[in-house]
């Protein structure tokens, strides 16, 4: 499973979710590619109007998106849901 997290420096919800994501990465040893909304080329991801956006890939195929601010608990639940997908 691969995760692409698109966030922005100026976005408080991204800062909170980013902190939670760092903790999740450390605990669950998942792979997350972090991209910046303003400074990286994100055109191919078709990002919506709410940040942050986490795109979930399985075998290079998108299987879902986690949108908006998530605290550690909520993010764990969402990630666990995808990690269980066969």
């Amino acid at each position, binding site marked *: 499973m691969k995760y692409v997290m698109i966030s922005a420096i*100026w*976005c*408080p*919800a991204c800062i909170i979710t980013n902190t939670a994501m760092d903790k999740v990465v450390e605990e669950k040893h998942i792979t997350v590619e972090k991209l910046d909304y303003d400074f990286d080329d994100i055109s191919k991801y078709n990002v919506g*109007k*709410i*940040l*942050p956006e986490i795109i979930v890939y399985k075998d290079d195929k998108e299987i879902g998106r986690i949108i*908006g*601010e998530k605290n550690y608990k909520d993010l764990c639940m969402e990630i666990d849901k995808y990690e269980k997908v066969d």
Partner: protein
Amino acid sequence: MKKLIRLLIITLLLFIPTFKGVNALDIYLFYGDGCPHCADEEKLLDSYLKSSDDVVVHKYEVWNNKDNAKLVKEVADIMEVKFVGVPYIVIGDKVISGYMDDSTTGEQIKSYINIYRNEEFTDRVGEYIKTGKVIKKDEPTEPKKKDEKVSFKVFGKKYTVNPRTVSLPLISVVLGLVDGFNPCAMWVLLFLITMLFNMKDKKKMWILGLTFILTSGLVYLAFMLSWFNLASLVPKLSLLRFIVALVALGAGIFNINNYIKSLSKDDGCEVVDDKKRKRIINRIIKITSNKKFIFAFFGIILLAATVNLIELMCSIGIPLIYTQILSMNNLSTFRYMIYMLIYIVFFLLDDILIFAISMKTFKVTGISTKYTKYSHLVGGIIMLIIGILMLLKPELLMFNF
């Protein structure tokens, strides 16, 4: 963060009872621009009341202002002391027409002030100006209540306060805090903090960050003072209050609607106006990467001023309503300034906290969008209530309990 919030609440609780529990004596001075005796009387009042915060002098220029010229005649009828010229001053139940010198009329004014500071009386002029109600001299009325105080305990210590003196500071704190949660200019601060980290010079980072926050506060203060001056120029029960009441109602409905809409949306940052944001981002990068500190310093001032002026439209409702409430309360200039400063301090509090924590931890901190969402609801309800009161019961916003 939790500790800081707890500390903030405790500070608030301690802050409120520190206001003196006294009821202000309102005196009314009618003068003419360029009149030398009026200038002498004003000079005496200014020096005598320099350090007193329990006496408020309301000044009305009658030579150039038609409304005030009409008002002084109406006041003269109410007080039953003919208006023959300026200066004409009403202190409690007494009127002094004309001004000889400091040792005669001046002493008389001082003695009346001291009498009515402690004596119960009906403020007939104040009542007429605020409500239009005429109370004649011998008409039995409820006298102006002195020392109406409320007692309560904080941390086992008993405090006694007067509701009038607490209401305005409290409303300044609440509205300032609610307004501070407005996210419009917050994104610029967060981006700036991240860019400041690249400077690697803590002293310069603190100076630039605080300059940004202080300039933001000054822009707000300048806006509020301008509105206050405009509001003071317009006579009392005017169209202006009606307009501000409508703004309050509109902004209240808009904020509550925003809250309701946000319930069905994901919590997060809404991406709007890409072009404007990128322009500001490029400016911040240019400022913070400037090798010459002095250019960076003035660049930050300019940035804060322009960003806050642009974003002011996003949060114009609360400061507008707050300034209108202040202008309805006929306070001394000193008190206006103190209340506005309280508002600004609490308006900037979240910015200061975020900046200080980020600087200390060297990691950007953000306030959850959930709180921003609730600030829309709280702000909306407050604005709706104030709007209704301004239209139907404006006297309740004058805090003359």
